[in-house]
């Protein structure tokens, strides 16, 4: 048996350095592999058409639509919140942005009620204001047992009629709206949030504002040529 103490000193270093270099190389390869199933199914994913009941922002006559399937309790969606804000400001004339609910109830217990709170605010014309407030304060309500009370407080802050808001948040109409968003996403093979659709087709999530900008600019070029 080789004893570590008797090993040639240079030999120890050679093994150590080779082990380090070898594993770094392998791990970098492993990390850059994107799951195949994701790429294959991307092409066939088409989002349901835009409805009057959708929550939209930007130019209604724009040639480009971006649909986001999102979950208010999802940290990744929250991470995209500032990115989307910037994109929507920059391209307010060029795109129509649609927010659709895809609450991952299995892992996020307050996602559904947050979605309903935003829809209840919409009944009083303040969907986007509530949307922003819910995302900004995600860490406050995410694990709270009485998240609904927190949303009612937000409604008051936004000067909404609190009684109407309370009634709306539990109304069948709003439950149906959230559910129909979810079902639409489900049919378009959404299985994670956020998921984005550019002119109806699912795209790989852009990783930054720059990537988003490039994708939109490319699509704008395509549309103007046609």
């Amino acid at each position: 048996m080789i004893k570590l103490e008797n090993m040639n000193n240079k030999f120890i270093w050679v093994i150590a350095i080779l082990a380090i270099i070898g594993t770094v190389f392998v791990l970098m390869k492993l990390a850059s592999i994107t799951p195949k199933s994701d790429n294959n199914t991307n092409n066939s994913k088409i989002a349901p058409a835009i409805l009057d009941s959708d929550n939209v922002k930007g130019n209604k006559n724009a040639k480009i639509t971006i649909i986001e399937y999102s979950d208010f309790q999802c940290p990744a969606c929250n991470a995209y919140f500032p990115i989307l804000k910037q994109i929507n400001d920059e391209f307010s004339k060029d795109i129509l942005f649609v927010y659709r609910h895809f609450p991952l109830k299995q892992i996020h217990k307050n996602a559904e009620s947050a979605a309903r709170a935003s829809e209840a605010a919409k009944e009083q014309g303040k969907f986007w204001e509530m949307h922003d407030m819910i995302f900004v304060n995600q860490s406050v309500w995410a694990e709270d047992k009485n998240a609904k009370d927190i949303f009612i407080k937000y409604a008051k802050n936004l000067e909404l009629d609190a009684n109407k808001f309370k009634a709306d948040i539990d109304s069948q109409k709003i439950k149906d709206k959230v559910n129909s968003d979810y079902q639409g996403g489900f049919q378009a093979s959404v299985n994670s949030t956020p998921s984005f659709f550019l002119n109806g087709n699912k795209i790989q999530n852009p990783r930054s504002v720059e990537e988003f900008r490039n994708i939109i600019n490319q699509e704008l070029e395509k549309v103007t040529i046609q």
Partner: protein
Amino acid sequence: MKIPKWLYIIFLIVSFIGFLDATYITAKHYFGSPITCSILGGCEQVTTSIYSAVFNIPVALIGAVYYLILFTLTVLYLDIKNEHVFYTASKITVLGFMASLWFVYLQFFILNAFCLYCLVSAATSTILFALGITTLNLKYRQNH
């Protein structure tokens, strides 16, 4: 003082495992797919990317460097057999242990999202800390 063989061998192996783990998270940060939450996978990717950088440097990269330093010091100890090298490594483990406590706290109480690889790193840094303390304790007892 002679440091028990089992101690530095485990130290060597665990610091290497920690290095592998942290390198993998770092590579994911730079080359992996974009972040999402999914029904099956939870929000693991979130913790491995966006929340995990200090001044634009991913903490996983700092972790990888940390484990690499410990690993290199142990190899150096094997080479020159100077106990003080290993004592230095033992003292450094306090930093990793403290950092791990902070990250576990973040995952449980702030992010509410967990990352398997981050928990593995917490385990390796805790083991290294235990080994480091054991070493320093042996040294202390020998001197008194």
